[in-house]
């Protein structure tokens, strides 16, 4: 009979430490989504109340003056808004699935949670890549 490794992932002993780490991960991720969605709601409210004034003042301080800048600013705002909302949605789903997976002891939910983290990090990799390219272009200007 083979002896089982006491720290094996596949062991059948209870592991409160894994629970604790997963719940902490879920808790902090959920806090980020709550703050993010709160900030998003604040921005939407501000844009509804005085969006035209904010965009006009942004247009006036831009170094490039061209026709259609106001429309371009609106498009950029919506693209930025929806990318942020999508990233926050991935985080929210990850937090919810991991918490439910731990509480229900369901590995499928846990895997779904990490799948959402995977999507979140892919989005972050794309954004970090764009930011890196922008920094490189600044360096060689």
């Amino acid at each position, binding site marked *: 009979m083979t002896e089982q490794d006491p720290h094996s992932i596949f062991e059948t002993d209870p592991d409160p430490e894994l629970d604790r*780490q997963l719940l902490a*991960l879920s808790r902090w991720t959920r806090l980020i989504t709550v703050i993010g969605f709160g900030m998003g709601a604040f921005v939407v409210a501000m844009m509804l109340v005085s969006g035209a004034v904010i965009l006009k003042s942004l247009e006036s301080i831009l170094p490039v003056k061209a026709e259609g800048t106001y429309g371009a600013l609106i498009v950029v705002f919506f693209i930025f808004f929806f990318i942020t909302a999508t990233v926050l949605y991935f985080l929210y789903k990850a937090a919810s699935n991991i918490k439910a997976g731990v509480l229900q002891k369901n590995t499928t939910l*846990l895997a779904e949670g990490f799948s959402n983290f995977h999507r979140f990090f892919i989005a972050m990799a794309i954004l970090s890549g764009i930011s890196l390219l922008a920094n490189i272009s600044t360096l060689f200007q």
Partner: protein
Amino acid sequence: MNQPEHDKSPSFIPLDIYTKSKISSTAKVAGTVAILSISGTIISLIAYITKPSVRTGLAKEGFDDATLQMAAQGSVLYIAFSVIVSAVLFYMLYSFSKSAQKGLAADDRRSLNKGLFHLATYFKVIAIIFLCALAFMFLSVLMMMLGAAT
């Protein structure tokens, strides 16, 4: 006092192959994100040090010396804060990537737990920065409203 059952019962989550593969792929992408983001920070720091136009962006706008000096000091503080935060986030994310992959490859639960701890700390740091930004935003709006009222 009655507690919910899940609060009392110990955990039993034997991670299956599918869950392991998801954690592993997340760890790999997280490692890439960590390297990309720290590279971006290092390049922007090099640009700040070597390019005078990045440092003194206000010079062209006709501001006086005192304003330029204040702006330069603020810029130095901002860059220093960005570098410190980026370094901490890189350490947490990269540690998660390495520990989780090591834990899954060697079937070592302690390494996996350590990796998850680093991922939780990574999100904790981001949450604290978000809270500070929220407080700053709230104070700015409050000051604008008070300024408008007087």
